[in-house]
């Protein structure tokens, strides 16, 4: 019974989701889009998009192509494409990206550099 459940979950896993209930202390890197719903402390280095979902708590320096923040992110951010801070989002740190948007209701503290 357990095996069939394993078999179902093992079928072609795609994407990376650190769900609610998981705590990671360390380094996350790669070339695939990542969604963080749980907790992460350390660093994230991606050549893809990162989503910090609502409810997530991230303390990390982040490098990614694009970054969506709907949860809490403490750390410095460098995004080669864009950074979007959603209305539920909270970002404390310095942000460096050519395009940055901050929705009404979001909270932010730090330095912004759009290479202007």
């Amino acid at each position, binding site marked *: 019974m357990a095996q069939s459940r394993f078999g179902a979950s*093992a079928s072609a896993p795609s994407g990376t989701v*650190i769900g609610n209930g998981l705590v990671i202390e*360390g380094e*996350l*890197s790669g070339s695939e889009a990542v969604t963080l719903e749980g907790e992460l402390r350390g660093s994230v280095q991606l050549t893809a998009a990162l989503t910090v979902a609502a409810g997530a708590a991230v303390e990390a320096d982040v490098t990614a192509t694009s970054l969506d923040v709907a949860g809490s992110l403490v750390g410095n951010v460098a995004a080669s494409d864009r950074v979007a801070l959603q209305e539920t989002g909270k970002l404390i740190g310095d942000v460096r990206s050519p395009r940055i948007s901050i929705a009404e209701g979001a909270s932010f503290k730090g330095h912004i550099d759009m290479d202007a």
Partner: protein
Amino acid sequence: MGNQHQIGEGVRLAGAIRGAGDLVIAGEVEGTLTLDGEVTCAATSTCTLEAQVTAIRIEGRFTGSVTASRRIDLGATAIVAGDLSAPTVTIAEGAAFRGRLEMPDATPTEPRRAPAATAPVSEPEPAAAPESAAEPAAAEASAPKAKTTRSRSTTRARKK
């Protein structure tokens, strides 16, 4: 519980992972893993882990140790080096494993019955003896071929 976590094929994670839920690893993970839930290390995964989980299924490359409270399954494509401990462990044909394997419940508390069952097998042999003894007697009754038949029965006796 019941949350699904996934570390995709193009992602590498180094550090300490802990929490609850089911985790599928298709990428590269190094460090420690303490999870109240089931882990699947897909065929594409490379793991170097000290893992303490409820259950784990390994189909990729794995180095380190695993203690599972319920079960460990090594799939046919698994290449594993390390120490495994769980009450239930299965290894599929084709899996490669090197290391220590422990099933904590495997404590011989009562003598095994298998050897005792083989003992009575010797009993039917005496019963067969009269039958073979009767055979030469019957052969002697047919006069011309008596000699050859007897020699054949003696070789048969020697074999026994």
